[in-house]
């Protein structure tokens, strides 16, 4: 502890440089934590899905609907214990700058099949009874300042017109991957407004046993193989993964460019830290003359590098951990449940330790090995 004052005094030698170096480390690690969190959030979303839930979509592509009439035929298959369906609506609110997902669902079966959507019983009943009612995630409440019982009008983009819904309930997802910024409303009302087209975007199929998933999926697809709308059935996890893979290249690009930027910042930082130690050749020689051992001087220079790297790490990683929840960040709805995972913090801390070693080791070894007489001749 008695030596720590010496470390602090050295850090205070060029205060601006020390502050800028620490901020560089903090920025690099903040960027690192942010970019890695995009990847981990996408990966977590891809992992979402009840083991007993399958999703059936149009084999041609997700944007093509399936006939609503498929529902009863799927429900009749062996191993199927529950069924619901949903349709992407794509409505926008106000100027549409703040995007959120909204879709029409078969309300009763949907809430039954997704126990992760939790809301008070009275609100649930009110929603089920109200044909033009809507259920919203708690984030939308704060984001738009909506209130329970308020009428909310969306402008349809795929299905034109003004669509007014009453906010009957506010749900809290127990799994962050389900998103807390989604608006769902009754499929029946949707179907009526679009002229009884009888379409469903996708079906969610609940099965009796996880081990039956491949067989049930095959029997569903076999059932409609020769129809005008053949299906593609897979586990809900596979379904989520298709969304995640749409991000795949973007995620890879962000990670690669981001890590390159982080690496460049770290190199500059390491150089600044090494330069700071190099400037003190004479002082190190004086300390050696006084009796400071090679080992002690090595430790002092390493501690100095460590204080800078770890302060930067606390600011950068801690900042990322606190910043995103504080602004309720969810990547405009594309990154539900965005969070800086503990693994990211651990890797970030390891990066900081690596930085400390990279920037501290060379000057610390140099200080320890410095021949006193030559160094003093340089000073004197």
């Amino acid at each position, binding site marked *: 502890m*008695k030596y720590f004052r010496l470390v602090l005094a050295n850090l205070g030698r060029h205060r601006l440089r020390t502050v800028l170096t620490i901020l560089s480390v903090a920025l690099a690690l903040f960027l690192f934590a942010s970019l890695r969190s995009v990847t981990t959030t996408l990966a977590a979303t891809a992992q979402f899905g009840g083991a007993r839930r399958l999703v059936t979509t149009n084999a041609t592509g997700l944007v093509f609907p399936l006939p609503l009439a498929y529902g009863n035929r799927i429900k009749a298959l062996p191993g199927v214990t529950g069924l619901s369906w949903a349709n992407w609506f794509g409505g926008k609110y106000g100027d549409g700058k703040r995007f959120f997902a909204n879709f029409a669902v078969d309300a009763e079966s949907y809430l039954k099949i997704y126990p992760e959507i939790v809301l008070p019983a009275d609100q649930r009943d009110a929603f089920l009874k109200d044909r033009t009612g809507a259920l919203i995630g708690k984030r939308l409440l704060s984001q738009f300042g909506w209130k329970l019982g308020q009428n909310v009008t969306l402008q349809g983009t795929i299905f034109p017109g003004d669509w007014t819904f009453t906010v009957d309930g506010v749900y809290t997802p127990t799994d962050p991957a389900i998103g807390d910024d989604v608006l769902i409303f009754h499929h029946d009302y949707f179907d009526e407004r679009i002229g009884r087209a009888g379409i469903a975007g996708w079906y969610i199929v609940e099965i009796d046993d996880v081990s039956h998933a491949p067989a049930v999926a095959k029997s569903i697809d076999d059932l409609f193989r020769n129809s005008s709308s053949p299906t593609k059935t897979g586990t809900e996890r596979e379904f989520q993964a298709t969304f995640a893979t749409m991000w795949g290249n973007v995620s890879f690009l962000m990670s690669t460019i981001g890590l390159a930027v982080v690496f460049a910042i770290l190199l500059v930082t390491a150089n600044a830290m090494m330069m700071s130690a190099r400037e003190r050749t004479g*002082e190190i020689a004086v*300390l*050696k*003359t*006084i009796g*400071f*051992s090679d*080992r002690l001087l090595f430790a002092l220079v390493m501690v100095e590098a460590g204080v800078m790297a770890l302060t930067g790490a606390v600011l950068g990683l801690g900042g990322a951990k606190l910043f995103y929840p504080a602004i309720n960040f969810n990547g405009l709805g594309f990154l539900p449940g965005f969070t800086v995972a503990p693994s990211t913090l651990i890797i970030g801390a390891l990066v900081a330790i690596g930085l400390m070693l990279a920037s501290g080791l060379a000057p610390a070894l140099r200080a320890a090995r410095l021949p006193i007489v030559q160094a003093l001749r340089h000073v*004197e």
Partner: protein
Amino acid sequence: MALVEIRDVYKSFQRDTQRIDVFTGLTLDIDAGSFTALMGPSGSGKSTLLNLIAGLDKPTRGTVRVGGEAVSEMSASQLAAWRARHIGFVFQSFNLLPVLTAYQNVELPLLLTRLSGKERNERVKIALDVVGLADRADHYPRQLSGGQEQRTAIARAIVADPTVMLLDEPTGQLDAKSSQEVLALLQRLNSEFTKTIIIVTHDAHAAERAKMVLHLEKGDLIEKPRATAAALR
């Protein structure tokens, strides 16, 4: 008995392809409690001799003993610990750490001891008081005059109560008045506190303050140690 014993010491440096012999069999004794001035032209080996006594450098051959300990045979870590206990070194250009106050600079050698914070505080205050800078404890080197800086450096050199004080041109960068103050201080440390002092200097006036003068030329003692008027006082 001699405090510093230099026996048949050889020291040579390699500069590019040229070998420079500084000492070729130097033998010398310096007594405990003495105040010795090493004089001689540039390149005569004065500073090299000081470095050998301080254990900052090693002889090519021969033995350097201080207080009975063979300095020339110690390892780097042993030397560091030995210097902390036995050597107080003062440089021509003061070499105070600019980021530390006078107090903190003086405290540096004590950080290497097992003394408590309170004990360190007492010792630093005494050392600063002896050099007449008790009221400058919180000043940084840039806030001190050259003479005050050198007196702080002397306080740093005496604070751990070393066996011997080594000073390399301590008045080389000072004006006449500050030089006199520093030299008077050294005389006092020698007479009142019986500190053994070895000083390298070009300045004849400075050498007159010492009790003994050694003249070096090309690594040899060119005349026998000579007592000065100060020794007779």
